[in-house]
């Protein structure tokens, strides 16, 4: 089997960079760990769950989807093609890999989104099996697991008490990674470490069932009281995919941008005429939960939450989806509508 010394993760990143990949990996940035583009000198941290998700690599926070030139009062459209270079998501958690399923679904049902698919096709996913979880992780409550290989092209498994990784290739793309990283990999034996224990947080089926008739529940007001509508949870969530389209122009040229957006923002559904169907934070939080646990499963037969716990780790107001779903489950058990 192919193994990689734990200290050589950065070397693998360097080898893949040299082989022409854009390497998105967990890099130290100040006192945080970010999934960002590896560059020589950056420290890689496989031991910390990064604050952000990997979706930026497939669905960039800002992407040019149109281009124009102006001549006086006239304009001409300039074709744009996705700028999708060969990319590897190196050592992303199984919950990040899992998030590709809902993204694939929404960007491909009916109309196929050229930009997303170009990035997706150019991307190889090397997952990192989790041997430790923190108290926000709940992948096992939403159909995932700490050693899941779903959507992964290869997987790095910590082995021998964290001294090295076993690299397993699962697809042709994964094989290509093993080949490109040849120089830093060793052929040998290693004992995979046991996967992390992730305690169940809530029963997602109960949440889905409650949500089906829960639209008008008075509970949403109480559940959402602490939310400030900052949208940070949606921006860091690996599955959230709402976007806005904005034009920006100078006198001579302009671009049309697709920027991330969030259903938690007050302006998201506000009509030009002033009417806003989701007029308070309670209705916006309801959308957040319903979309992930009721609407998305209804249309795409999967949850739109992978249990990564990011929203819980970062929300200063304690509004993790895990916490809210647990409260919903309790309400469901108590027969509260």
């Amino acid at each position, binding site marked *: 089997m192919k193994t990689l010394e734990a200290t050589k993760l950065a070397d693998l990143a360097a080898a893949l960079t040299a082989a022409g990949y854009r390497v998105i990996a967990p890099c130290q*940035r*100040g*006192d*945080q760990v*970010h999934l*960002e583009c590896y560059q020589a000198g950056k420290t890689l941290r496989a031991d910390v769950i990064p*604050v*952000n998700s990997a979706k*930026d690599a497939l669905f960039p*926070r*800002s992407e040019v989807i149109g281009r124009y030139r102006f001549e006086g009062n006239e304009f001409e459209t300039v074709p744009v093609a996705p700028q999708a270079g060969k990319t590897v998501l190196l050592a992303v958690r199984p919950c990040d890999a899992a998030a590709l399923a809902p993204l694939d679904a929404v960007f491909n049902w009916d109309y196929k989104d050229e930009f997303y698919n170009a990035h997706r096709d150019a991307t190889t996913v090397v997952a990192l099996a989790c041997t430790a979880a923190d*108290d926000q992780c709940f992948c096992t409550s939403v159909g995932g697991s700490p050693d899941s290989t779903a959507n992964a092209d290869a997987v790095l498994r910590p082995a021998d008490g964290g001294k090295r990784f076993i690299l397993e290739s699962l697809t042709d793309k994964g094989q290509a990674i093993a080949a490109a990283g040849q120089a830093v990999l060793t052929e040998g034996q290693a004992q995979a470490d046991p996967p992390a224990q992730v305690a169940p947080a809530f029963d997602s089926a109960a949440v889905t069932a409650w949500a089906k008739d829960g639209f008008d529940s008075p509970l949403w*007001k109480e559940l*959402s*009281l*602490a939310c*400030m*509508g*900052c*949208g*940070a949870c*949606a*921006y*860091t969530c690996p599955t959230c995919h709402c976007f*806005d389209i*904005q034009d*920006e122009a100078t006198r001579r040229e302009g671009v049309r*941008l697709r*920027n*991330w957006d*969030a259903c938690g923002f007050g*302006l998201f559904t506000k009509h030009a005429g002033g009417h806003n169907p989701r007029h*308070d*934070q*309670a209705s916006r939080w309801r959308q957040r939960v319903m979309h992930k646990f009721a609407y998305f499963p209804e249309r795409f037969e999967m949850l739109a939450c992978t249990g990564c716990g990011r929203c819980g780790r*970062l929300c*200063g*107001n*304690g509004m993790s989806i895990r*916490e809210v779903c647990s409260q919903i489950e309790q309400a469901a058990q108590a027969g509260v509508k």
Partner: protein
Amino acid sequence: MVANINEIQSAAAALLNEGKVKLVLGYRVRGNDRVPAFVTQADQVGCLAYDSACTQNLAAYLRKGEVRSRMPLAVVARPEVMRSLMLLTAESQIAEGQVTVLAVDEQGFHGVLDLAGTAKLLNEQYARIAPDSSLMEQLAKIEAMTPQERSAFWSEQFEPCTRCYACRAACPGCFCERCIVEMNTPQWISTAAESHGNFAWHMIRAFHQAGRCVECGACQDACPQGIPLMLLNHFIAREVEREFDARNGYDPQAEPVIGSWKQDDKQEYIR
């Protein structure tokens, strides 16, 4: 936990029982976290907690419709939060009678105050809140940089910004219904989450905080991307202090530093 936490609880219970407030905004403990508590019944005050880990600036909730509709209310407020309340009073967002203060600091509870009483306490007890020394060191380093180095430094800091505007949402002072970044006729600031747009956003945010930021740290805490917003905030606050002799959030009648003109302004900016 502060020693006299039960005094906060009984003060909150009394306010609710006497019908003086409909809601007490405070903190409670959940696991390792401190999360906001919204107490509406006197028999729930037992959950109220306070210690130095309670860092959210609860004054930011005063902008939220669902909270405003429960005025009059009481807020558990440390000095920075009290300063936010002074700012909000000066900028006509709240008025005496709408907000009661449960004054706290790391030593404990210091009583129930109205806004005028809060102003008095702030100026008597907390007139000088020493700025964080490690931040001051970093600032000194930045000030020593050449303009090119400085611009490269900030570009690097702003690079991860996703433009989620969580920093704005967490700040009590950011209460505009439509923020300048959302105005599009004309569009003032690029919405693109990349170097130019990010730079413009952070400059605008910093300037709109000039003379207003109370240095509570809520924006930086809220930022999922770890952008060192407090560096900018401290820098601007020191600059305002130097140029205008003003410290933000101490005077509930203060004229806006940037929006008003005084005969004795130093005017060193006009060169």
